[in-house]
């Protein structure tokens, strides 16, 4: 009670320096509550930010940051001159764009379709079923699809052969690898991503539907004139959030799925950082890759947000 009264009695900014200290001392117990969280934040989130400095060094793990040689921008020059990096950046953007264009609308469609179902039991069963893959680890999903898509005896190729085609080795063929990545990502997350839209659909005022059906609007007309506009704010919000992770093309997924045969089309920034940093112990270079990637990502978010504010009148900041 005392603490609230003390803090509420005046505006924080208006006090002088001594008052500020009194305020901090008076609320020491608050800071005590925050202490564990802050320690974790400082140690495992803030310290690694300082560690990003190794992108400007020729880092040696035995001498540490203070003992390593400073090399300025040379890691970035190496990056800009490496063919690998641009291939990886383009792969990342392509896979990510395919995922957004092909997979973002599907959960919305699922939510709209589910809304038309009148039998609650059927609706709930479908919902539970389509959520399930979200709980599987990528290691398991990759293992499953490697077998299902196998050119020798896998389900999909059996069907292709039965229809008179030739077996395709989906996971070792550069032409198909990206499609496999997009499709399996859809299998895992589409149902789960529908949750937010299902909740949004449930929040629409039912009276609008009654009014519309009195006016003679059919179910399909109602879907496009009431349901879809009703969830549009949620759609836009989710879309902006999705754009924010444009440069995350699915590191874990690709790491568990790919093999050297499809590096050309499948290697993305996350997997590249892994191979350079941990495989070849080139910590400085892979941190530089991460830093460059994040800078590009940041610019993309700013652009996406500006476009959305201009054309959709909605933005995250």
């Amino acid at each position, binding site marked *: 009670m005392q603490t609230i009264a003390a803090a509420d009695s005046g505006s924080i900014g208006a006090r002088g320096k001594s008052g500020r200290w009194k305020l901090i001392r008076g609320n020491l117990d608050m*800071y005590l509550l925050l202490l564990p969280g802050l320690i974790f*934040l400082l140690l495992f989130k803030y310290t690694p930010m300082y560690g990003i400095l190794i992108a400007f060094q020729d880092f040696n793990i035995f001498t540490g940051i203070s003992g390593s040689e400073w090399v300025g921008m040379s890691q970035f020059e190496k990056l800009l001159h490496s063919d690998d990096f641009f291939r990886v950046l383009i792969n990342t953007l392509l896979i990510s764009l395919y995922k957004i264009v092909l997979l973002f609308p599907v959960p919305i469609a699922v939510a709209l379709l589910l809304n038309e179902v009148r039998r609650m039991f059927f609706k709930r069963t479908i919902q539970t079923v389509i959520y399930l893959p979200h709980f599987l680890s990528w290691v398991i*999903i990759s293992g499953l699809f490697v*077998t*299902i898509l196998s050119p020798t005896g896998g389900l999909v190729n059996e069907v292709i052969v039965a229809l008179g085609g030739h077996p395709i080795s989906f996971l070792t063929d550069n032409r198909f690898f990206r499609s496999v990545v997009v499709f399996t990502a859809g299998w895992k997350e589409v149902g789960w991503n529908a949750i937010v839209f299902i*909740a949004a659909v449930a929040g629409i005022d039912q009276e609008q539907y009654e009014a519309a059906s009195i006016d003679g609007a059919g179910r399909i007309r109602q879907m496009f004139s009431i349901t879809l506009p009703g969830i549009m704010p949620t759609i836009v919000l989710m879309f902006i959030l999705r754009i924010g992770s444009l440069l995350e093309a699915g590191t874990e997924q690709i790491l568990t799925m790919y093999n050297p045969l499809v590096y050309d089309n499948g290697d993305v920034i996350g997997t590249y950082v892994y191979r350079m940093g941990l495989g070849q112990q080139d910590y400085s270079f892979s941190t530089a890759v991460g830093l460059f990637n994040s800078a590009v990502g940041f610019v993309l978010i700013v652009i996406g947000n500006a476009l959305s504010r201009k054309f959709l009148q909605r933005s995250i900041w």
Partner: protein
Amino acid sequence: MRTKAWSRSVNVALLLFFAFCTLYPLYFMLISSVKTNAELQSNFFGLPLDPQFQYYGSSLNKIKTYMSNSGVISAISAIGVLVVSSLSAYAFARFRFYGKDALFFTLLLFLMIPGVLTIIPQFVLVKNLGLINTPWAAILPYIASGQLVTIFVMRTFFEGIPKELFESIKIDGGSEFRCFISLVIPFALPIILSMGLVTVLNTWNDFFWPLLVLPDQQKMTLTVGLYRFMDQQQILYGQVFSAMSLASVPLMVLFSFTMKFFVQGLTSGAIKA
């Protein structure tokens, strides 16, 4: 009237097709887990003719160390995230203190930093702390990352608790600690459970980080263990699929039963925010 019935059956058919596509790989995993390599080749689609249930015994033997490693890491991480974040969220939700807004903004800022930026420095840090191949190499960073979003969601929820309830405890002479234990915790139990489940799920299924920091055969988590398991030559598919089923089915069952909390946690974060 006729078009209505027609469009309704198209709708049902689409949803059923969608559910079928979702279930088929899972069904495939379960039936293949009891087939020999020869039967997998000759009888890819059908139910097993001669189920080899002993695969479950032998694969359990292989992955039980990994399973208990993952169990320990997920459990401690979830408890850690809940304890650390509920304390912080309580302070953020209930009091005004110097630097509150700045601190909260800092949290949000860290939430937006892409993982790929700090993964190598974080690895170097964990290595320098001598934590490689100990469960703490996974647990401590998991708590540090997990708390960010949890504090955010819990703060929103704690702020929704009516002020009068706090007042009445205070009038009865209760302390802040008492408010926290006997009001906030029971009131927010669904959201607390839901955030705990989210943490369990994320840490149990995480692959990239444990691959870096827990390479030792005895310390590996389940995902990394399964990955290595599948890598081997002379693969015995039945055993691999039974290991996968053991690794995933308990989790799917657990989450089917707790789905309500889960969905609540997810939508309360996304819709309110």
